[in-house]
């Protein structure tokens, strides 16, 4: 049988031209300018000492808002990066054929992981005390007026085997281990992919499949625990049993949107000729389906807490819904991440044509940032938070930095896995 994919240029590489670099750098600089402006304004605004004192005994400083912003974007873009690798692994573990030509785009998102790891760990050491309520030694001191029995009960999860309130060694070990394994699996995938391009044959595909399976097992556990660690522990008293999946689903939708946008962008630049509207349709279905999945988890968490009305659980939503800062964003969150994608992407045509997908994916990437904003800021900043210049600036800086790193990584290797055994199947894919 003649292989029709041979008609295409399978050796093509993404050319990261100065023009593209320049436009991304422009966004980065705009973001940086907004960020600096936001910081200056926050510094001049002073540290509402009297308001902070009533909130929890600590005066509010402008840099706390900066830390919270860094943390939101650290967690969010780490998620997008790891979801790229996760979705890549899913393709191999599920022996998917349709996605063969775009697997390298997914994998390229992992390039952000090493940087994310450094940023995360550094931010934790610099800002951990300001971000995490549990990093206050007096909470664990039975003789202190600040002693908190509930947090003391959870303390071992952060501090074991050291004494509670000293140094959160267990937490840091988890962070390092998760990033270590994620980066390890990512570079393993990259190595196998490079070998496949050079040597061909099906053995690399089988190897990739086994490693994907190992990665998925590890990711299943690590994604959930990292969500508790990095996001849920901010509201130290509060807990939700589905929080791990909730954060994962938010990451997953954002990551899928980023992958879809990258594929549409590359197609617009004339790459990936063998990717047609059938593949785009499949990506669109993933985005559509998982934005509903996110809504399902969001609502499941909300409804049970709302219905049971147990004070220790309800406080999480009371803090957000009754706040003049965050109250509106709850509805913005639902509108951006459920209502609009659901209505726009419902028809088949919308999923097959780039315009609608571009719109919805951009909306979702911003929308899930709002989701993380709502998870992080109320617990760290209280009523001192909000979406201002600092938030927008930081998001643009992180987003364009991720774009630079991901596209830079993509330009290094082959764009299409030319020896992938299912390339022809993917070309014939028709739905």
């Amino acid at each position, binding site marked *: 049988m003649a292989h029709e994919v041979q008609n295409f240029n399978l050796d093509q590489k993404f050319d990261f031209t100065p023009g593209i670099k320049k436009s991304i750098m422009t966004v980065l600089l705009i973001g940086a300018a907004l960020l600096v402006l936001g910081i200056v304004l926050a510094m001049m605004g002073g540290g509402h000492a009297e308001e902070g004192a009533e909130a929890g005994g600590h005066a509010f400083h402008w840099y706390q808002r900066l830390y919270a912003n860094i943390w939101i974007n650290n967690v969010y873009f780490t998620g997008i990066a790891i979801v790229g690798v996760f979705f890549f692994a899913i393709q191999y573990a599920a022996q998917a054929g349709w996605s063969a030509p775009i697997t390298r785009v997914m994998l390229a998102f992992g390039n952000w992981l090493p940087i994310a790891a450094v940023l995360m760990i550094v931010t934790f050491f610099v800002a951990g005390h300001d971000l995490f309520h549990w990093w206050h030694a007096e909470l664990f001191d039975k003789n202190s007026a600040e002693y908190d029995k509930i947090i003391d009960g959870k303390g071992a999860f952060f501090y074991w085997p050291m004494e509670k309130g000293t140094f959160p060694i267990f937490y840091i070990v988890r962070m390092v281990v998760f990033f270590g394994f994620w980066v390890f699996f990512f570079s393993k995938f990259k190595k196998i992919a490079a070998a496949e391009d050079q040597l061909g044959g099906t053995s690399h595909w089988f190897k990739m499949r086994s490693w994907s399976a190992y990665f998925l097992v590890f990711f299943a556990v690590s994604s959930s625990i990292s969500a508790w660690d990095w996001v849920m522990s901010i509201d130290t008293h509060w807990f939700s049993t589905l929080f791990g999946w909730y954060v994962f689903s938010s990451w997953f939708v954002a990551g899928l949107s980023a992958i879809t946008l990258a594929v549409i962008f590359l197609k617009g630049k004339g790459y990936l000729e063998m990717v047609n509207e059938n593949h785009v349709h499949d990506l669109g279905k993933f985005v559509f389906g998982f934005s509903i999945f996110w809504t399902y988890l969001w*609502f499941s968490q909300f*409804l049970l807490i709302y*219905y*049971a*009305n147990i004070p220790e659980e309800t406080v999480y939503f009371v803090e957000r819904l009754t706040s003049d800062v965050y109250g509106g964003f709850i509805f913005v969150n639902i509108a951006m991440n459920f209502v609009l994608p659901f209505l726009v992407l419902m*028809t*088949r045509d919308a999923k097959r044509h780039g315009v609608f997908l571009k719109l919805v994916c951009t909306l979702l990437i911003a929308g899930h940032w709002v989701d993380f904003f709502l998870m992080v800021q109320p617990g760290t900043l209280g009523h001192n938070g909000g979406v201002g210049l600092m938030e927008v600036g930081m998001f643009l800086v992180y987003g364009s930095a991720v774009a630079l790193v991901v596209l830079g990584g993509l330009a290094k290797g082959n764009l299409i896995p030319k020896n992938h055994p299912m390339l022809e199947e993917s070309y014939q894919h028709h739905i």
Partner: protein
Amino acid sequence: MERDTHFVLGVYEDEDVLLDAVKQVRSSGVKIHEVYSPYPVHGLEHVLGYKRSRLPIAAFLFGILGTTLALTMQFYMMKFDWPMIIGGKDYAAFPDFIPVSFEMTVLLAAFGMVGVFMVSSNLKPWAQPRIFDVRITDDKHVMAIDIANNSAMDQEKIKEILKSSGATEVNNKSFDE
């Protein structure tokens, strides 16, 4: 209604031959009534020039109907007909209504879609199925051509076109209904 309908049937053994035959027959100006095959032939609906099904529209409308009905029902029951305080919430507590509304949406969308499909496909219990050729449930593809729809063309000419397009047999079939 008593009406005799007459068909010319082309019997094909291979799906690739069938796909080419459909293209040939259509380009020669013959209107095809329907093609029957024992299994789904990929791309057949495309070469036959079928428009996309409008069933999703029906599903959407029935879904909206389900949502509306469920919300109306719950608001009426909880607010007016038999107001009850549950869990200290308002009588009409919107979040409580979502699960039921969701289920009703899915239920009516599914039932509505099945119903519309049955009506539009004439799948009523008392419908008399037209069996063009018993072998379409086994190993033969059959292309049915309605004579009345092709009155401009001579019957012998149609048979010739079918033969030359690769049909292994060309038969006549009439139904009294």
